[in-house]
């Protein structure tokens, strides 16, 4: 009895000091959440519409952050899942007249998941373990191929895509762009964010982070490395699919660019800029890039992409952990998984 007492106090104090150092991340998260919830009250209507689009892109960025920031899989084809789900729900609405939220969003989720499972299963599973370069190239090619096919396929509207999708409905209520859609998008973002947060702090997330840091060691621990990768890749595809279907109904049309290389690389920029490997980093990166681009696009439309490139290069060179690392210590960013004091 006398021996256990000091030990337990040690672990107790350690727990307290650790929790004290751990406050920045939740604070950032809560701040972002509060700003997000209050925003439509102060914004004009057309800005709320723009902000809704940014929120949906945040959801999309989260999906890329899961594969690259956590599992270390370089996916240059995230738009395949985003766009295919967008096209899928657009076809449901156009040809079958299905616009109920209870059907289209699960459908988008499933389409994204299925495409990711197919592409990821092909690229990641198999006898030869896939190299990072191969996965990057394979996903990039997939994105390019889907873009080309959608452009050439008359049923999908060719170059013009599918215009004037009817709005999404709940019962007989039509969800059109504006504050209602905004709050729905932020609701989905919060739910998905919390799910990802939970998942990434579980044993599964720990194994994924290990995969990113040292794949071989995780394999030696007895994890089925390729299976883990395929699972997270498919999950991220499902999230991208959800984002894609929300995006399609919000914009009211889908076009081949949604599948293509441009959107695929844009999401890479968001996450790298904000800070990969933290979920909030993906959100912040998306918001910052989209906000600045909205602000600059009127007066400096031509040089904005150049500035974006320069900023990205600077971040990669000097702040590999992204903007978030300005606020967050390395230790908190990487995080210690499980209970404190039991590392």
């Amino acid at each position, binding site marked *: 009895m006398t021996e256990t007492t000091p030990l337990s106090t040690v672990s107790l104090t350690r727990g307290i000091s650790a929790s004290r150092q751990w406050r920045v991340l939740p604070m950032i998260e809560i701040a972002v959440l509060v700003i997000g919830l209050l925003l439509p009250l102060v914004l004009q209507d057309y800005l709320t519409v723009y902000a809704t689009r940014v929120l949906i892109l945040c959801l999309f960025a989260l999906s890329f952050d899961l594969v690259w920031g956590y599992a270390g899989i370089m996916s240059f084809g995230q738009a395949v899942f985003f766009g295919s789900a967008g096209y899928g729900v657009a076809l449901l609405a156009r040809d079958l007249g299905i616009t109920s939220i209870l059907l289209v969003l699960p459908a988008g989720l499933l389409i994204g998941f299925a495409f990711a499972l197919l592409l990821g299963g092909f690229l990641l599973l198999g006898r030869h373990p896939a190299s990072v370069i191969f996965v990057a190239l*394979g996903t990039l090619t997939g994105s390019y191929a889907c873009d080309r096919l959608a452009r050439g396929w008359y049923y999908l509207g060719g170059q013009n895509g599918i215009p004037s999708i009817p709005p999404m409905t709940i019962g007989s209520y039509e969800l059109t762009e504006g504050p209602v859609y905004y709050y729905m998008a932020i609701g989905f973002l919060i739910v998905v964010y919390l799910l990802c947060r939970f998942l990434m702090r579980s044993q599964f997330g720990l194994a994924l982070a290990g995969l990113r840091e040292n794949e071989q060691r995780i394999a030696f621990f007895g994890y089925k490395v390729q299976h883990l990768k395929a699972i997270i890749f498919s999950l991220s595809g499902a999230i991208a699919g959800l984002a894609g279907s929300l995006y399609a109904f919000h914009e009211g049309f889908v076009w081949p660019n949604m599948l293509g290389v441009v959107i695929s690389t844009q999401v890479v920029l968001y996450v790298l800029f904000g800070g990969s490997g933290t979920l909030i980093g993906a959100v912040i990166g998306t918001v910052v890039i989209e906000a600045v681009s909205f602000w600059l696009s009127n007066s400096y439309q031509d040089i904005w*992409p150049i500035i974006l490139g320069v900023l990205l290069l600077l971040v*990669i060179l000097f702040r590999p952990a992204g903007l978030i690392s300005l606020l967050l210590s390395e230790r908190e960013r990487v995080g210690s998984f499980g209970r404190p004091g039991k590392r």
Partner: protein
Amino acid sequence: MAIFEIASFGAIVVLVVLGLGIIASMMGIFNFAQGEFVLLGAYVTYIVHTAGLPVWLGMVAAPFVVGALGFVLERLIVRRFYAAPIVAMLGTYALGLIIREIVRGLIGGLYLSVPEPVGGSVAIGGMHFSTWRLVIIVITALVMAGSYLLLARTAFGLRIRASLENPALARASGISTNAIYGATFAFGAALAGLAGALIVPVFTLFADLGIRFLIQGFVAVMVGGIGSFAGPVAGAGLIGTLSAALPWVISPVIADVAVFVLAIIFIKFRPQGLVAGKGV
């Protein structure tokens, strides 16, 4: 006639891929800015043309200009990436984005054409061949042979290969691997510049010229196999030939996609590529 078309397109792809392949094989870096080096080569040619000077002068100048720029970029930026290939990919992607957007700003969203320095056609056996395409094929063959000789037969090539095989030993033997890497990157960039200059009369000049070639180039390098000289060339020949030949059989859109998909499947089951092994 079809065979000539296919051969000339194959030659173009080989030319574009050669620089990419040399950088990827000899330095282990996947240079995502390579497509933009091609674009720059084309742009330099266009500038010289609009200045009223002969087009061929621009084509001679392009590799030197782009090579010099490649050297500067390597010294300033790319050399920081050697330790981490993925970061290199993203960093060079950012570089490419900057170059592409600057060129887009300079030319606007336009499609600009540059005339062929040698016009007309040559009649061989009753068939007419575009002279310029013949010139491209010949120059590609020359450049390929020249690069091969440079890497395989000269002292400089030996140093490049030594720096690739065992950097530590190369440094210990008094080779400045730093300078070698700089020179190799500049050489790869110069080849891309030359490619851009030569193909601009065939394609028109537009800001996204590089992207298409980038994907094609990477697929070709992977199909051929990284680490050797012959690999990327063989891959480029195969990809170029297929890309040019398939549209004669099936619809162009399907053909374009099919080549890439087939290539990815091939790489999946033979990751080492057509030509396995290292060296020249």
